C-alpha cells in the first residue's frame, strides 16, 4: 500500500471539494474512496464537488463514484469535474459548435439538417423543414417549419429576415403560428423566436436578441 493519499478532502468557500488522485489504479482509488467516505466523522450535510483531474471515467465508472459518495448521508454531490474528455466527445462538440451554411431555396418536402447552428441564405418555402442542434438563421423568408435546439438546447433561437413560419419548434416546445402569436407581430420583418423565461416560445425584434441571448455572440476583438 502506498503511503500517498489518494483522496483529499478540502474545504473551500463554495463547499467541500473531493480531489481524487489521477495516477493510481482505478480499483485502488475506489477502495480508498469507500474508506474515506465511511470513516469521516462529519455532521450535517455538505455539498461536495468531485474533481477527477486528468482521469477519464466512462459513464459506468462515474455512476459508481457517485453512488459511493452519496452513500454517506453527510455528502451531496453538486458536480463532477474532469479535465479530460474522450476524442469522440471532443469531435461531437466541434461539430456542434460549427455552423453550417446552406445557399439556395429549401423547397416543399425538403429537409435540411445541421448538428450545430444553421445559416440558410435563401427562402424556406411552406412545407419545407430546417432543423439544427443549435440556432437557425435565415437570410430570406422563413415560411416553412423550423426546429432549433433539436437535441434539447433551450437557449437556441430562430431568426429570419421574414419570420412567417407555419411551425416553430425550439428544443421540446412547439408553437403553431396560427394563434395570437402571429397576430402580435404586425410585420414579420427581422424577427426572432426564443424560449422566454416564462417557458413559452416568444417572438421579438431581431435587434433585441443581444439582450436576451447575450451568450450567442462569440465574436472576439474588434475595435
Amino acid at each position, binding site marked *: 500500500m502506498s503511503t500517498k493519499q489518494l483522496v483529499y478532502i478540502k474545504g473551500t468557500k463554495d463547499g467541500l471539494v473531493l480531489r481524487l488522485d489521477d495516477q493510481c489504479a482505478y480499483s485502488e482509488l475506489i477502495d480508498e474512496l469507500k474508506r474515506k467516505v465511511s470513516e469521516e466523522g462529519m455532521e450535517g450535510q455538505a455539498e461536495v464537488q468531485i474533481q477527477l483531474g486528468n482521469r477519464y471515467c466512462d459513464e459506468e465508472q462515474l455512476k459508481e463514484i457517485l453512488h459511493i459518495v452519496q452513500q454517506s448521508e453527510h455528502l451531496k454531490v453538486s458536480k463532477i469535474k474532469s479535465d479530460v474528455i474522450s476524442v469522440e466527445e471532443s469531435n461531437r462538440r466541434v461539430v456542434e459548435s460549427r455552423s453550417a451554411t446552406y445557399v439556395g431555396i429549401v423547397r416543399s418536402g*425538403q429537409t435540411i439538417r445541421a448538428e450545430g447552428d444553421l445559416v440558410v441564405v435563401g427562402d424556406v418555402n411552406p412545407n419545407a423543414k430546417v432543423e439544427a442542434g443549435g440556432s437557425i438563421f435565415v437570410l430570406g423568408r422563413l415560411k416553412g417549419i423550423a426546429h432549433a435546439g433539436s437535441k434539447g438546447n433551450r437557449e437556441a433561437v430562430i431568426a429570419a429576415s421574414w419570420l412567417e413560419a407555419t411551425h416553430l419548434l425550439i428544443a421540446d416546445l412547439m408553437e403553431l403560428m396560427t394563434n395570437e402569436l402571429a397576430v402580435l407581430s404586425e410585420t414579420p420583418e427581422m424577427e426572432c423566436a426564443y424560449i422566454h423565461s416564462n417557458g413559452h416560445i416568444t417572438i421579438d425584434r431581431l435587434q433585441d436578441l443581444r439582450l436576451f441571448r447575450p451568450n450567442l455572440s462569440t465574436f472576439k476583438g474588434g475595435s
Partner: protein
Amino acid sequence: MGEAIVITSGKGGVGKTTTTANLGTALALQGKKVCLVDTDIGLRNLDVILGLENRIIYDLVDAIEGRCKIHQALVKDKRFDELLFLLPAAQTTDKTAVTPQQMKQLIGELKRDYDFVLIDCPAGIEQGYKNAVAGADKAIVVTTPEISAVRDADRIIGLLEQEEIEPPKLIINRIRPHLMNRGDTLDVNEITTHLSIDLVGIIPDDENVISSSNKGEPIVMEPTTQAALAYRNIVRRILGESVPLMTLEGESKGVFAKLKSLFSK
C-alpha cells in the same frame, strides 16, 4: 440530335396535357419536327386532345417491350406534313409496366430523329413522374395561380433540381385577369418570387381551350384567341427569341381608371 423537354406540375388538372399538345403543335407550325410522348400510362389523354384517339395501333409499352418497332407505335398527325407525331401511352396497364431506364433509352432514340421530344408527365411524384423525367434534358413546370398548385410546383421543382437536367422553367396557366387584379388569386410576380425560377410564359384562362380540346384541335390552330397567342409566344421563347410577356385583358387601364383606383386605395 434534338432535345427532350418534360412538362410536369405535381398537381393534376393544371393543364399539363393541354400545354404539351399546344406547345407541340406550335413547334410543328414553326417547322420543327416534333414527337409528343404520353407517359400517363393507364390514364392517357394526350391522344384525345390531339384528335388522334382512333388511329392508335401500338403504344409506348408495346414499343418498350418489343412487340413493335418504335416508329410503328408513332401516330402521325396528318394536319402537319410529317412534322408532328404522338407516342401514345398504354391504357390497359399501369405506371409500373415501364422503368426509368427503359424510358431513358426510348427518349434517347427518339431524340435522334426529332428536333423536339415533349414528354407529358402524369400528376404525382411516384413511378410515373420518375419515368417521365428519366430521359429529359429540360423541364417545364406548369402551375395555376392557386396556392395548392403553387405548393405542388414548389415540391416538383425541388425534385427536379436533384435530377441532372437544366433548371426548370415556369408556365403560369389559366390566369383570370379580373380575379388577379382584384387580389383574389396570387399574381404573376408573387408566384415567380415564391418559386424563383425563370418564367417562360403566362396563359389566360380561355373557354375556347375547352371546346377545342373536346374537338381534338389544339387551340394554337385558332390564332385569333388569346390562349393561342400565349402558346405561340412560349414556343418563340423556347426557340430563343425574346418576346415580351403579353398584357392580359383587363390589365390595361385608362388614365381615368388609374386615377380612380389611386384614390380608392
